[in-house]
């Protein structure tokens, strides 16, 4: 009797877990189906080539060229990676290898805090400080590719730092000892032994950071200027894919609205490619161990 009851408990428990698992799957699937079912007809109507490579975006006038936004998203992400990744990795090295224990734990807290700040606060900070500074130096208003890259560069720091730090830390002690025993200096050990050994984890952190940068919306809208043109200089205004959706969502109807869903489809493809890359890196990390 008692055993039987336990079995029933066990079964109920399993079912509960299954249901919870299903909810997240259903969420992912329904979002995907919804976006594609709204977006694909729009892409068909506009024409895939016109949609992706058209250079003019004016939905109320029947112009649906997404190319400036695709380029904008790529540029901003690239800029954020160029600013955030070197700083992030070096900070990770500092925290895991060089900093005294107390300083390191203080640093970790700070990084966690950085991760917890809402993105609209980053954006507002950027609008009030970085944008006027760029206006002062380069002119042209300050809302620009550069401003967006700097803000996103700061925003991806926590991702880069925490994952890189974990992977640098997980490099076996023997490698460190071996390198130092051969007479190599600390710095030589870090750059020639530790970082190459932790390569996969660091690359994974970069891919995750790219995902964060490409998906960020609110902060970018505030500092990027949102002009749907291909930027030719760092101080020029840009619009990203996410900003394009968020800006016009409230006003769009009909084909315009579906074109915004189609923008979501393009973003989705970007994210899927990133996830495949991430999976490859994760596999490599697994093989290393």
């Amino acid at each position: 009797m008692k055993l039987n009851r336990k079995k029933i408990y066990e079964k109920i428990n399993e079912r509960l877990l299954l249901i919870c698992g299903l909810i997240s799957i259903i969420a992912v699937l329904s979002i995907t189906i919804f976006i594609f079912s709204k977006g694909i007809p729009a892409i068909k109507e506009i024409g895939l080539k016109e949609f992706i490579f058209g250079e003019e975006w004016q939905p109320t006038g029947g112009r649906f060229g997404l190319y400036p936004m695709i380029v904008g998203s790529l540029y901003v992400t690239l800029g954020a990676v160029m600013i955030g990744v070197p700083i992030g990795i070096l900070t990770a090295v500092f925290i895991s290898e060089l900093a005294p224990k107390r300083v390191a734990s203080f640093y970790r807290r700070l990084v966690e805090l950085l991760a917890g700040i809402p993105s609209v606060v980053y954006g507002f900070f950027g609008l009030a400080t970085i944008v006027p500074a760029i206006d002062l130096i380069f002119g042209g208003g300050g809302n620009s590719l550069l401003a967006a890259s700097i803000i996103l560069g700061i925003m991806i720091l926590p991702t880069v730092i925490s994952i890189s730090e974990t992977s640098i830390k997980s490099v076996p002690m023997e490698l460190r000892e071996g390198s130092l025993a051969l007479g190599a200096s600390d710095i030589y050990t870090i750059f020639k032994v530790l970082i190459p050994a932790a390569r996969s984890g660091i690359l994974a952190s970069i891919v995750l950071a790219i995902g964060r940068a490409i998906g960020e919306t609110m902060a970018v809208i505030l500092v990027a200027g949102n002009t749907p043109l291909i930027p030719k200089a760092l101080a020029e205004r840009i619009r990203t894919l996410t900003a394009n959706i968020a800006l016009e969502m409230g006003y769009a109807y009909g084909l315009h609205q579906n074109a915004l869903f189609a923008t979501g489809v393009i973003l989705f493809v970007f994210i899927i490619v990133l996830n495949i890359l991430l999976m490859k890196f994760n596999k490599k990390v697994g093989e290393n161990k």
Partner: protein
Amino acid sequence: MKKFTKPLVLLSLVLVLILTFTGCSNKTTGANKGGTSQSTDDGDSVENGLSGTINIVGSTSVTPMAESLSEEFSKLNKDVKMNVQGVGSTAGIKASIDGTADIGMSSRNLKDEEKSTGIREYTIAYDGIVVVVHPNNTVSDLDMETIQKIFKGEITNWKDLGGKDEEILIVSREDGSGTRGAFEEILNLQEKDSSGNTLSTIKKDALIADGNGSVKANISRKENSIGYISLSYLDDTVKGLKVEGVEATVESIQKGEYKVSRPFFMLTMGEESEVVKEFLAFILSDEGQKIVGEKQVPVN
């Protein structure tokens, strides 16, 4: 492991039970509330004993006014709940057509395909669109043609207008915005292409800000900028320009002297409920129009 399963199962069961019961109890209390409030209505009715909820959705330009009107209306009718949401003209028109909102707000003229749904329009006010610059800007009066040239990008330096030798930075709104649509219409900043599409002729590299507030925030931080906002958003962080010698004020728009102005609509679809009818009547009454007159221009 076994030790943990029992509490876990119990906990999850309790959670499920709590969820189901709270769900039920909410429903029942909700129904009770409805019942009792209805019965008390008959007893001590305030004025005419109206009750119900009005959802008003639409233009962000109409929102501030709709909010103060709603506030006053629910003071008079304590059992009426008002929800005002500013999401943009197009979304508001859509919401009133498909019935998700009781009343839609629009700050632009309806398109033919929108009118063909049989939607009803009530002109409740006029609004001025104010061309704004940074407070330090020395330019203070422009004519319609000059404004048009500036936004088309034909005049690009403030010195041509008697200001400093600085490039003009245009701040505009996102495509689809009611304020932008009205501004383009009034200033003839649109052109038709060969296939009949209406295209904006506002300079393509204009900075795009999302909403009246964001335009203001950008202009107040950039000395060489120019933009346009709804009259109800005008304050001293920016400087409103005169258009052909006329300042944008309630009086000048009412008299038709200030040229950059447009109507505000409330929209309904299908049969109007008693509450909605009363509210619309209230807006057009002297009392309602007085509230309108605080920021916008009353109909009469």
